[in-house]
């Protein structure tokens, strides 16, 4: 049993957050000086092989974060709501999968939610300074006061996680319960998880615990059991133990090799610089042209010619070269 994190201390002095502003590693649309020493990286480990799909994590998340999700409908499967929403930060996704090797049915149940990437695409895409911050312990958190609700984080995210609220038009996703972690607690979902399919601790501890779990799975014939800590996003602070780590996508479309979309990279990278340069160049070129060529003025002669034309006088002398009349 992974040792339980002790009950919280609710006394005023004990509950002061133990990380914050000074521990910000990255801040959206801003340049920050990273803290001199990085906090120990934390991680949530979701062991899909131990998960029974009970949705306690979903309930605990709604309760802790005071979220009110709508009561929906049944759509023929156990997943409910059908997708993440601004009020559903985490969601059990159910997949019935027949293992082609054994022909056994496997009910793959994955807890979906923010992965807290080391290289967060949401943060990269975000245009609003300070709307998304990454603490040096790895937590990627949205700051709703700064969020403008543009939804760029959704496009930046390789996991399709953030959702924009129709109420306050800001983006929502799992905070890894930064408010709880800041007082030495684990996230609400982890606390609730009945089978400890979700555990929380330092990233190193989680990797070690994952090894322990993977050994057990391999002993039960899951040869491809492994840890999902995708390098394409620099690793994540929410990791999975998968029985079939060779094919993550069978778990309700978990990306096999997630990375920030090249389109997003292009947009936030080259487009931004080239675009500004081109616009600057255009303006500068105009300015230079004006200086060099001077204004293009109408002469007295032009006016007179026009007057003559308007008065029905003989056509004025052609001003240009002869060949202009030749089509």
């Amino acid at each position, binding site marked *: *049993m992974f040792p339980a994190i002790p009950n919280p201390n609710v006394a005023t002095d004990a509950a002061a957050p133990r990380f914050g502003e000074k521990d910000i590693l990255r801040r959206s649309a801003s340049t920050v000086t990273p803290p001199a020493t990085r906090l120990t990286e934390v991680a949530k480990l979701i062991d899909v*092989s*131990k*998960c*029974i*799909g*009970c*949705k*306690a994590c*979903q*309930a605990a998340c*709604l*309760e802790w974060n005071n979220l*009110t*999700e*709508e*009561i*929906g*409908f*049944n*759509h*023929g*499967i*156990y997943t*409910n*709501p059908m997708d993440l929403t601004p009020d559903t930060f985490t969601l059990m996704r159910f997949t*019935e999968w*027949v293992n082609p090797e054994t022909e056994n*049915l*496997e*009910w793959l*149940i994955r807890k979906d939610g923010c992965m807290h990437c080391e290289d967060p695409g949401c943060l990269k895409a975000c245009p609003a300074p300070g709307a998304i911050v990454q603490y040096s312990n790895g937590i990627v958190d949205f700051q709703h006061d700064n969020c403008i609700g543009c939804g760029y984080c959704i496009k930046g995210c390789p996991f399709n996680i953030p959702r924009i609220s129709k109420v306050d038009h800001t983006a929502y996703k799992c905070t890894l319960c930064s408010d709880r972690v800041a007082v030495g607690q684990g996230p609400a979902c982890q606390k609730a998880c*009945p*089978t*400890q*399919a979700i555990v929380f601790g330092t990233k190193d501890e989680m990797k070690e615990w994952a090894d*322990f*779990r993977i050994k*057990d799975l391999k*002993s*039960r014939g899951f040869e491809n059991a492994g840890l999902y800590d995708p390098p394409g996003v620099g690793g994540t602070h929410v990791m999975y133990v998968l029985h079939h780590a060779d094919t993550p996508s069978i778990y309700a479309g978990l990306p096999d090799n997630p990375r920030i979309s090249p389109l997003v990279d292009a947009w936030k990278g080259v487009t931004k610089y080239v675009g500004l340069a081109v616009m600057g160049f255009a303006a500068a070129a105009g300015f230079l042209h004006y200086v060099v060529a001077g204004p293009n003025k109408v002469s007295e002669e032009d006016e007179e010619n026009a007057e003559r034309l308007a008065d029905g006088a003989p056509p004025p002398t052609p001003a240009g070269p002869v060949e202009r009349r030749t089509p």
Partner: protein
Amino acid sequence: MTNAWTDIKNTDLVVIMGGNAAEAHPCGFKWVTEAKANRGAKLIVVDPRYNRSASVADFYAPIRQGSDIVFLMALINHCISHDKVQWDYVKPFTNASFVVREGYGYQDGLFTGYDEEKRDYNRDSWEYEIGPDGYAVVDETLQNPRCVWNLLKQHVAIYTPEMVERVCGTPKDAFLKVAEMVAECSTPTKTMTSMYALGWTQHSKGAQNIRGMAMLQLILGNIGVRGGGMNALRGHSNIQGLTDLGLMSNLIPGYLNIPTQKEPDFTTYMSTRAFKPLRPNQTSYWQNYRKFFVSFMKSMYGPAATKENDWAYSYLPKLDVASYDVLRVFDMMKQGKVNLYFCQGFNPLQAFPDKGKLAAGLAKLKMLVIMDPLETETARFWEDHGTFNKVSPADIKTEVIQLPTTCFAEDEGSLVNSGRWLQWHWPGGSPPGEAKTDIWIMAQIHLRLKELYKKEGGAFPDPIVNLNWSYKDPGEPTPEELAKEMNGSVLVDVFDPADPTKKILEAGKQLSGFGQMRDDGTTAGGCWIFSGCWTEAGNMMARRDNSDPGDAGMFLKWSFSWPANRRVLYNRASCDLDGKPWDPSRKLIEWDGAKWTGYDVPDIAPTAKPRDVGPFIMNPEGTSRLWVRKMMRDGPFPVHYEPFESPVANVIAPKIRGNPVARVFKDDWKSFADIGDPNFPYAGTSYRLTEHFHYWTKNNHVNSVLQPEQFVEISEELAKEKGIALGGWVRVWSKRGELYAKAVVTKRIKPMTIDGKTVHIVGVPIHWGFVGSARKGFPANTLTPFVGDANIETPEFKAFMVNIEPSTGPVVA
């Protein structure tokens, strides 16, 4: 549970059959995942559906609902025929060697003494042969053809793997795989645990399902040991406590019995409760019955219970039938024989079978009193909700009084968990509005009734006016007062008979345990098995020391466990005949040469020598029972009976319909679909979902979000056959009623071949109604039959026949 939730971590093999622990008890299921992760334990799930438990199982085998006994008897057959028996356990610790009386027999699904007219047995022949010494005859060589072991071998012989495939629909190789894994646990160092719940109890032979597994566990030597046992997961938070406290028609707290009218006086009553040992030196602890009974009566009636009036024996009502269980009472209600009915935190309109019959019954009451923290369908049974509850309020004359009560968060007291732990809790919030505690309400009713009787007189006022109600504030006794009363106290100083100057019990003191209870009226105690819960040392139930010596999972200093703070029942059986643990790495207790010591409270007298006294001290045999004498109505061995509604006739006894001794009320026969009725071709079963708790959490917004709308589950094959779309509406109907729901079309349910016939399963979760936050729906009991288990009348919710068709959804009137 014989063991505790935390003990499951000690097991090597978990068999979940007749339950769905991951779904219904996720936090208890944690200990299964612990056993798997740390001991390399395996998990087997046997269920009609590949369910949430199966999703993390090492092996899943499908089974048709209602055929468990075939599977279990076949497992026993497999173990016996492959000599996978823990002989050192079976021989001394079970009644395998006991010789059964001549005249007992079994043929074609029936035991001797069956009376078809009465649908009951004359069970006189179901007894041991008693020798000239007055003790039961045993043959330790197991050679006697009439010894229990040989009768068992003979009884299970027909339950072969082929029979399993034919009746249960479980593929033979899947059964054999399960059998091999189970049989491995017959060694002393490997244990298996059985986790079951309503999947076994809610059948017309529910009690025998459980016996089947208990017998297997005895053969494997898994009762009384760490990581073993028969673990009933149980339902509501204090259903164990309410049963312990005898809130049933025929019980007195601590599993004592309400007398029947055949026991007009105390002497007659006690004459069948002597519990004389059936073998020499055996404890037969029920010999103390009288002490527990008298102490209870002193607690009930105080000074009014005297030796002279047989401890107020006449105050107790006498039964004329086996029980006034809910099925009987609702049947009486429908006949207009009940006038006044109380529902305390209970929603029977949803919870009992055949909603139509229940509603008709409620409408015949003069008054219905509801005490509940929440709105219930029962409280509003008279309200018109269109398709969901089509009634005409004007025609219903029942007066309904709805009283708001506090809930767990607002009250104080103890609850008993499935592991028999009595845990105290404290309130955290103020009650809403005018809500009151149930204790206050009950006290008010009592005081007002007593006042009326004092003032007006009336029918036999004595038990009411003499009820011991000596609480500081009679209007609202405190939980502390009541807990202390259940524990018991000394009423009069008691002196040592050998030395009259030596006071052994002092008046006014709390008892330290039921061992101090006396049958002379000097002690009182409301519930003997709870004794020890609030002693002179204080509230034992409130203890919160979670230390666990030896990592044994026992937690002796956490709360209080009945009986006597014991965590594993029959733990004497964790040791061999000489008192050495079967598995030293999983020691519970051991004989140190002078006494029993260890991590748990020994389930035997601390100084009882191991070879002298058998481990099953509650039984007069001193052993456990593979063959149960006449203690069960439907037979000393389990027999496969089909559900009352079944797709096929009983393969082993084609003439027998359902359980031959299960009680069926006259009018209900015609409400059952015939065997193999083509109008109801699909095998229905009802069950719970992890997102919901009965009919409560549809009042909870969060849970309603997680599972918002009613559905039924069917296979892809059936969906294709009937043209049912994933997530589309269907109508499901039985001979009794119908419901509309969405279709969850799944690979997790497969059609089965039963006796050559394809049988499709329709799974019906139970949680919906016309009150609450979730979308309106239909309770599963619109479909279910009004018949219960032959022994304890648990309704047959798990196996019934239905039909299904695509639909456009309920018409909302």
